[in-house]
């Protein structure tokens, strides 16, 4: 349960005050030690080893790439990072689907494929991969100066408030803060404490309470329109309050150490277009996808629709190895492509008047909420729910 475990709060009760008491030159090492303890506790040696190996290799590859030597290393390292993510997250998924496909064409799959079980994915591997790829890309393509201090790089890699689920940090913003670690002022610490309390409240008192209702509605023998609409709205609020709660605790904890990390949300359900929604929802991920997938693919310059679709499918699959996540990515990709097309053909539809914005909000919110059904449920259930949307009467 991570931030909800008593262990975490005992850990924080020691790690943060000792950090404050540490002389300035020792703060970095204390922070690194505390992050390592946190990582070890939640990931164990089996979860830490692959991340440490990838981090060490990434550190040296970035130095080599910045020195202009062996540029092919950049491509090889990025492929290794993505390959490691694919292996841990999608191995079983691919093996199962290949087995099913072979069985469908009456070819017996090899025994090793049928019994394929890979080790559990290391904690936060999706987030590590994104931060390391971002780091290498910035050093190689944008010619940024690499991190030369291994302790700085280590803290960037395993900084404990953001270790498990982000926010996905950017090294040009984060690492310079490590040069001058200071204690927070009261004016910084009190808002940080408030933020942590609000985060806990969002998770414990809103998101987890919504789950209790969602479970009841899910168990109904059949779906009708009011139930499906309610489920979609509840799931939308549940995922928002769950992740916004997590983010508040992570950002607040970083603030207690006087460090700034990116924000993830900016009132996403107030968005009036899908494009705006993706600028407000899980911002550290959506901006990563924009900068390191969408723009390198060509962005708005060439075949925008294909780039949008590819970026959103990858975004969907990043959330997990299941077809519903891929479908959710396709769903949002299609939505964004349609919206971009309409913006080109009928720019007047996206006016700034209150009426335009209200209608825009209603369409966007409805689209996003239906998307949560695809995100949370298997395709068969979504189909049942969609049919249920046509039924308004009582279902017993």
């Amino acid at each position, binding site marked *: *349960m*991570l*931030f*909800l475990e008593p262990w975490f709060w005992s850990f924080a009760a020691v790690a943060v005050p000792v950090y404050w008491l540490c002389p300035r030159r020792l703060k970095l090492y204390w922070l690194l030690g505390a992050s390592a303890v946190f990582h070890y506790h939640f990931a164990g040696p089996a979860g830490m080893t692959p991340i440490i190996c990838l981090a060490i290799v990434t550190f040296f590859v970035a130095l080599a790439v910045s020195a202009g030597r062996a540029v092919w290393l950049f491509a090889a390292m990025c492929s290794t990072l993505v390959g490691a993510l694919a292996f841990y997250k999608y191995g079983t998924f691919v093996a199962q689907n290949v087995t099913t496909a072979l069985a469908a064409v009456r070819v017996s799959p090899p025994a090793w494929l049928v019994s394929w079980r890979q080790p559990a994915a290391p*904690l*936060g591997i*999706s987030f590590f991969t994104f931060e390391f790829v971002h780091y290498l890309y910035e050093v190689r393509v944008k010619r940024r100066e690499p991190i030369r201090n291994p302790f700085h790089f280590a803290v960037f890699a395993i900084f404990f408030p953001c270790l*498990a*689920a*982000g926010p996905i940090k950017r090294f040009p913003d984060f690492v310079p803060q490590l040069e001058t670690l200071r204690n927070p002022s009261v004016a910084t610490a009190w808002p940080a*404490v*408030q933020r942590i*309390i*609000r985060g*806990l*409240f969002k*998770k*414990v*008192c809103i998101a*987890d*309470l919504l*789950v209790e209702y969602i479970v009841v509605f899910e168990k109904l023998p059949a779906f009708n329109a009011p139930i499906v609409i309610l489920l979609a709205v509840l799931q939308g609020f549940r*995922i928002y309050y*769950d*992740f916004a*709660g*997590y983010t508040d605790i992570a950002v607040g904890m970083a603030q207690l150490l006087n460090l700034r990390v990116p924000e993830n949300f900016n009132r996403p359900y107030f968005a009036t277009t899908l494009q705006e929604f993706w600028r407000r929802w899980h911002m550290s991920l959506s901006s990563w996808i924009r900068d390191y997938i969408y723009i390198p693919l060509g962005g708005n310059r060439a075949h925008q629709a294909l780039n949008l679709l590819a970026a959103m499918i990858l975004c969907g699959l*990043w*959330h*997990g190895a299941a077809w519903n996540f891929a479908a959710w990515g396709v769903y949002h990709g299609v939505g964004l492509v349609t919206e971009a097309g309409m913006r080109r053909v009928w720019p007047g539809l996206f006016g700034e008047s209150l009426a335009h914005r209200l209608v825009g909000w209603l369409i966007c919110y409805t689209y996003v909420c239906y998307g949560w059904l695809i995100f949370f449920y298997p395709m068969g259930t979504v189909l049942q729910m969609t049919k249920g949307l046509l039924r308004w009467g009582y279902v017993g």
Partner: protein
Amino acid sequence: MGLRWLKTIASVLLHLLMLLAVLALWNNTAPQFIYVAF
């Protein structure tokens, strides 16, 4: 000045209430954070 103090006291009280609600509803078998699984 007075208004600032009033806002501060209200904020402290509100956050204390939130904390109390969190402690009251604390559940050791609560679901994991959704995004930690990703």
